[in-house]
């Protein structure tokens, strides 16, 4: 049986993309898989009794070394902010290519804590900063220093000791350009080095609380239990900065979604499913319920989504228990059809993610297809004709062409870059100033404008000729030719309409990172948790691949 890939016009809608969940394809899981054989080491731990100072952690294999350099700083409570406008953080980090010299550490000590206003070099690969979850951090230090383990109920409400507020890579602030390192096999997957940074930061947070607790009371202090460490991750506060990324990297976006779609197609095409595989799938769905029930958020929007997800997953498990026979042919295809007919988008994508768990043979090759050499697809094929471009738009953007951008509600917002922090922002064009400096992120509107122009242009004109008098549409001409080859490269929705939920765009990206427990703090930013339940560095050589469904707090 041949199953078709799902229709981009359905899957690339924001409500669907905003329902995606982590899976075996997620970058933090593929990072762990890639680096599990590497030698992990804490090379330097030079903190004072209050936990301030420097530390270095590394992964090494053969002659390749990646070193995380940590700078823990003392800041006042009033200086602590998760917003991108902050200028001080509890800790700042960079991932250095190789073994840093003392001179490197001295250089970086002056730059890394300054973050966006510091300067890094081609020897640094990623940059980040993090703030303590003060309530949890203090409680853990206090408990350990008294010889006790912390209160698990309190820990479960947050799930981490620190949360990062940005992770930068790919040439930002002088960091190494991607092209310098792109031929390294171990990082042939998106965001590998960003994931490495976050993973090693997690270990630093455990070492730091142990260290501070010990110095508080050396005689009776105990270390944070390994099992508790394992069930703590690293938090992250994420705002609109992430949203334009998925618009600005169309072929990369395509490769992420296409890998997921290919995985689903191949799984639905399996005629006979082995018992061990169906058992693993069901086990993961059942165990994952804890991830849903321990998912805390004050957001009414998210609470509603969690509630319908929980209801539908329970309905699904009931269906599997009572009405479903895994020995029938093409069982995963039947499950998928049932999900489409009976559950919400959030549940469909949740179960689709879990379907991948038994199938390393399908997933691992797809992980290698998730990067993109975007330069290759940048040039516009200007020798092609107007009628060809019009046909592409009609075929690839049918729903976009139905939107009337003359209506105020469909043209309500505009994206801009804030002068203060050079970060993307969204505003109401009819109430705020600055829409004349709009960023080119209103793709749907501009595609519609392009289409209208093409309708009144001669079919036989070449694109080169068309562009001589339509330069303002050049950016979307490029995109239309990209979407012709890469069907999942475009969000098939209006990114400036009044109903836009920007967190849908953030969730899409974060699900591919492997984030859990999306906690929207407004419609424009959210908190998440990464690596919760993941093996500790000393457990990497042999770990349970389904750790993500087995968190204990």
């Amino acid at each position, binding site marked *: 049986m041949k199953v078709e890939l799902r229709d981009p016009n359905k899957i690339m809608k924001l409500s669907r993309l905003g329902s995606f969940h982590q899976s075996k394809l997620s970058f933090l899981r593929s990072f762990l898989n890639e680096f599990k054989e590497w030698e992990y080491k804490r090379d330097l731990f030079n903190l004072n009794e209050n936990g301030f100072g420097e530390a270095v952690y590394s992964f090494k294999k053969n002659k390749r070394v990646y070193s995380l350099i940590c700078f823990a700083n003392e800041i006042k409570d009033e200086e602590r902010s998760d917003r991108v406008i902050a200028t001080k953080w509890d800790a700042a980090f960079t991932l250095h290519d190789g073994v840093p010299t003392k001179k490197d550490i001295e250089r970086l000590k002056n730059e890394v804590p300054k973050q966006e206003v510091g300067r890094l070099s081609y020897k640094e690969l990623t940059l980040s900063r993090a703030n303590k979850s003060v309530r949890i951090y203090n409680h853990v230090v206090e408990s350990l220093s008294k010889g006790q383990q912390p209160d698990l109920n309190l820990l479960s409400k947050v799930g981490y000791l620190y949360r990062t507020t940005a992770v930068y890579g790919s040439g930002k602030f002088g960091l190494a*350009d991607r*092209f310098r390192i792109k031929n390294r096999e171990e990082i042939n997957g998106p965001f590998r080095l960003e994931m490495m940074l976050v993973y090693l930061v997690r270990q630093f947070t455990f070492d730091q609380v142990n260290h501070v607790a010990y110095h508080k009371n050396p005689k009776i202090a105990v270390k944070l239990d390994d099992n508790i460490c394992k069930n703590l991750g690293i938090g992250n506060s994420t705002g609109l900065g992430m949203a334009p990324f998925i618009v600005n990297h169309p072929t990369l976006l395509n490769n992420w979604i296409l890998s997921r779609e290919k995985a689903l197609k191949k799984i639905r095409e399996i005629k006979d499913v082995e018992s061990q595989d169906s058992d693993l799938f069901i086990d993961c769905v059942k165990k994952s319920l804890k991830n849903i029930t321990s998912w805390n958020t004050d957001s009414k929007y998210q609470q509603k989504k969690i509630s319908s997800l929980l209801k539908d997953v329970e309905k699904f498990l009931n269906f599997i228990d009572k009405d479903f026979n895994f020995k029938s042919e093409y069982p995963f295809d039947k499950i998928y059809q049932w999900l489409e007919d009976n559950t919400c988008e959030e549940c469909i994508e949740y179960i689709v993610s879990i379907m991948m768990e038994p199938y390393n043979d399908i997933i691992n090759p797809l992980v290698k297809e998730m990067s993109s050499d975007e*330069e290759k697809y940048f040039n516009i094929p200007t020798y092609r004709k107007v009628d060809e471009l019009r046909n592409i738009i009609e075929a690839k953007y049918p729903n976009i062409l139905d939107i009337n951008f003359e209506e105020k509600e469909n043209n309500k917002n505009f994206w801009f870059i804030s002068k203060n922090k050079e970060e993307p922002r969204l505003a109401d064009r009819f109430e705020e100033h600055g829409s004349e400096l709009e960023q080119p992120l209103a793709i749907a509107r501009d595609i519609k404008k392009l289409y209208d122009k093409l309708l009144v242009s001669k079919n036989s004109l070449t*694109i080169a000729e068309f562009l*001589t008098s339509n330069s303002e549409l*050049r950016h979307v001409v490029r995109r239309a030719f990209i979407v012709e080859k890469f069907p999942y490269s475009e969000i098939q929705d209006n990114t400036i309409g009044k109903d836009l939920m920007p967190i849908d765009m953030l969730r899409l990206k974060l699900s591919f990172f492997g984030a859990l427990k999306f906690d929207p703090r407004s419609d424009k930013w959210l908190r998440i948790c990464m690596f919760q339940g993941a093996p500790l560095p000393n457990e990497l050589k042999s770990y349970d691949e389904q750790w993500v469904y087995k968190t204990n707090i």
Partner: protein
Amino acid sequence: MKSLSEIETTVKRASKAAGYSWGVSEETGKSIRLLELFSLPGIKHLNEYFNEKNKSKFENLNLINENNSSSNNPYCPITLGVSFLDQINVLENLKKIEFKNVAYPIIFISFISRSSEIIGKKIYLKMDEKKILLNLNVNISSNFIEQEFPKLANTIEVNLLENEDNFTDYEWNNLYKLSEETFVEESDSLKEGAAGAGLTDND
């Protein structure tokens, strides 16, 4: 040191601020990134051009012919570059194209370099007395690499080269003969064991 990614992003934004469309600004970002990758003064000349653009007029050439001469003001290197890039598949048939009066020609050259990759042919430029070879966008070589790039080119002659060897048949044959010394002469028994041996091709 600024990364190429920072260079591309900043050039794109600055170009938009200088009045170009987003699509053209994206092209400019790619082109200046390329010049800086090749250690050519892209940022310096773009900066000077944008400063001058505020004070002086430049001519936009959208449709390129065999001979292109700006009447009063120098050609804008960005519009000229984008037009060249867009029309390269047609221009390829012309073999030789001439431009008179081009401002900040190094910026224009970056677009020609990218065009060289698109058509898969080397492009040879004569810019007044200077000679430049654009090699499929892999590198740019010239006979004046250490001299200051001019801010204005009176004449640029663009020659699209046919794909030909850089060496003679004699040189090639000599080298090939030497390479044959790594081959093994086949004996009858080796021939019998080779792939396809023993099968009839008339079955």
